[in-house]
């Protein structure tokens, strides 16, 4: 892979250049922030082609809305707001609500649950079965719930940060977080009941 030549301009300078008609400068912004946007998109989509579509949409939207960027805040914050909102739109468009059953689990997922049942304190957190199970449970949540759990509990963001990223009020974030946790607990309770774990 060829290493792209580093651009010493600040984000604000690059944005000004793009707005002045130098479209090619936009590539500098893409190169700078695409790893960050990819990591964020991978929280919401499992298939790599879906992740790529999300990232592409984020940058196309960013280019189209570049006029609305105010240089007072860092470009990264502005871009991540767009990324989070695009991921939320993706979740809403791909919403699937199906009953979660134990039989659908992979071997690793069921093994992790069985081990957890036998020795709750000894079950490793870094186990791939746990991560797969988390992905599966998250996939069953509503888009609001999934977004808020991801930002609050997986990315450790504050309520204020989430409010800025999503455009929701702080109290709405709190309400949605409360409901999301309850939804997740209910889902796991049903699962535990059905399997008498």
């Amino acid at each position, binding site marked *: *892979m060829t290493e*792209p030549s580093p651009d010493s301009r600040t984000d604000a300078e690059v944005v000004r250049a793009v707005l002045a008609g130098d*479209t*090619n400068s*936009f*590539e500098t912004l*893409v*190169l700078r922030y*695409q*790893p*960050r946007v*990819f*990591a*964020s998109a*991978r*929280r919401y989509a499992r298939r*790599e082609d879906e992740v*790529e579509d999300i*990232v*592409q949409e984020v*940058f*196309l939207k960013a*280019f*189209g809305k570049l006029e609305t960027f105010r240089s007072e805040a860092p470009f990264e914050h502005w871009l991540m707001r767009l990324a989070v909102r695009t991921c939320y739109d993706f979740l809403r468009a791909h919403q699937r609500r199906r009953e979660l059953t134990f039989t659908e689990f992979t071997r690793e997922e069921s093994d992790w649950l069985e081990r*957890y049942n036998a020795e*709750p304190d000894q*079950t490793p*957190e*870094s*186990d791939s079965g*746990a*991560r797969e*199970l*988390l992905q599966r*449970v998250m996939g069953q949540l509503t888009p609001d719930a999934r977004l808020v*759990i991801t930002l609050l*509990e*997986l990315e*450790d963001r504050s309520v204020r940060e989430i409010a800025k990223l999503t455009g929701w009020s702080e109290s709405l974030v709190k309400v949605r977080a409360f409901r999301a*946790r309850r939804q*997740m*607990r*209910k889902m*796991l*309770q049903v699962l*535990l009941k059905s399997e008498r*774990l």
Partner: protein
Amino acid sequence: MKAELIRQRLLAAGRSLPPADHVPYAFEKRIMAQLGRAKALEPWLFWNRILWRCAGPCVALTLLVGALAWWGPGDIQASDSLTADLETVVYAPLLMAQEVW
């Protein structure tokens, strides 16, 4: 209670390994190519944008003229019937042309 403990454990598992940030090869070229395609459509977008921007002032002007016509000072030379007024306005250029000749 048990569901909450499992929930906490699963979230801890999710936090322990953040998602990868690797980027497919030359992905930025794909974005730039998409932008190039979008730019090809730009003349139409530009035209569309102008039309939308003009729409607001046009509506405002129409409302203003309408308001003036409705509440403004009445035309001193206005006749009693609307038909006669309309006829005068429509034939005004013809009458003026006749006067010139």
